[in-house]
């Protein structure tokens, strides 16, 4: 019998590599972000993480905590606006792959869809495409590495850049409802990057607001089929643990 519901956050996170994993995290700001799962990873002393996420946390919650605790080595995303992010990036402690938001979404979808690369117009003619954006600073503020220059190509007279799929080791996501087969339903704009992270990753762990019996989610209203989900833990259980 397929049963992806885990009784504890420890069980749900057991297979997450403790060092150097690429971890995609759903959410847009705090909306739909698996704050409890991310903080539970901090408790497990996960380090040198390559985070793939639109943002890098707000205040001291979720990815902001992971950031403040110095656990993030690299960040791929569109808007890491946290002040602590700027400090660590400029101090040479975080490598930044700044990615337009739609390109981030599409790179994750491509990773999940077996599409290794695609062309997009976003970023054409900018420093994010021509390889002049500082990706990594040295300890004295000097630029150690610039963003990778992107291959360009014309189709029907318009220029596009080639973008590669993202295939994270792990996805941490948040959903509204789940069943034991792993089927998920999201609520309102909390959906955002969550299904895409789940599709792209080798191992997907979801914190959910509630578990329902199999068959209660109508087939037409499942936003993410369970095949893309490995472990599910109810947020209540994570809260107890993290508190």
């Amino acid at each position, binding site marked *: 019998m397929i049963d992806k519901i885990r009784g504890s956050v420890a069980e749900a996170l057991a297979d997450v590599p403790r060092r150097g994993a690429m971890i995609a995290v759903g959410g847009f700001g705090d909306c739909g972000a698996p704050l409890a799962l991310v903080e539970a990873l901090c408790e497990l002393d996960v380090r040198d993480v390559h985070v793939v996420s639109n943002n890098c946390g707000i205040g001291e919650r979720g990815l902001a905590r992971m950031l403040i605790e110095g656990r993030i080595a690299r960040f791929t995303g569109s808007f890491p*606006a946290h002040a602590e992010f700027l400090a660590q990036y400029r101090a040479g402690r975080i490598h930044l792959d700044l990615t337009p938001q739609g390109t981030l979404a599409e790179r994750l979808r491509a990773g999940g869809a077996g599409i290794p690369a695609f062309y997009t117009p976003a*970023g054409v003619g900018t420093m994010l495409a021509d390889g002049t954006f500082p990706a990594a600073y040295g300890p004295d503020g000097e630029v150690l590495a610039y963003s990778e220059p992107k291959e360009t190509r014309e189709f029907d007279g318009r220029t596009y850049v080639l973008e590669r799929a993202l295939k994270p080791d792990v996805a941490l996501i948040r959903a509204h409802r789940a069943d034991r087969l792993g089927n998920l339903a999201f609520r*309102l704009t909390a959906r955002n990057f969550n299904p895409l992270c789940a599709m792209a990753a080798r191992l997907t762990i979801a914190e959910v607001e509630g578990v329902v019996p199999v068959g209660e989610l109508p087939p037409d209203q499942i936003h993410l089929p369970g095949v893309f989900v490995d472990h599910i833990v109810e947020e209540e259980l994570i809260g107890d643990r993290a508190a």
Partner: protein
Amino acid sequence: MTVQPEAPPIGRTRAEIAARVAEDLNDGDYVNVGLGIPLLVPDHVAPDKQVLFHSENGLLGMGPAPAEHERDPDLTEAGKGFTTAVAGAAIFDSAVSFALIRGGRLTATIMGALQVSASGDLANWYVPGRRPGVGGAMDLVQGARTVWIAMEHVDRTGAPKIVERCTLPLTGRGVVDRIYTDLAVLDVTPAGLVLTELAPGVDVATVRAATGAPFAVAAGVGETGR
């Protein structure tokens, strides 16, 4: 020491700029609005027009900001503030949201700007050394059918934001179609900038003085806006 000059006492307020943009929207338009003045545009759409606003985090049919007691943590907009959904709003994931953008389904995207060049280059995402963050701007300027800029004509130091060539990192090249400011409305055309409208009480000379690039004046534009 530099002295912060006061805002010019003529022309449009931020709300009036937004209202002016809203005049140019049509019934049935699909529009993405960025932070700043653009976010004020929805409040000024005439009641006889149904314009659907898009929020790139995954909502088509964004409504007004909610009262404090009506805030729903699962319903936020692209600036991460709380929002509402109008009747008939649709939710989708980020990939579909940007498919909609790049696929040319937005009538317009309305954005602020740091600089706009005479050829429609746009810089509005990054000041080197400050916090890096690009969001959806680069997707929006490539995907939306028209790109309208709504901004103050000059920056806080009084320097022109409409320039011959952008000195700040670009969001996109040749992407801007129209600029709405406190002083004027300008179109970006293949022949260069064209002033199409003066704000009330503003004359052409004032716009020229505040603009860092040459522009033509469209026929029918008087010496002073009414």
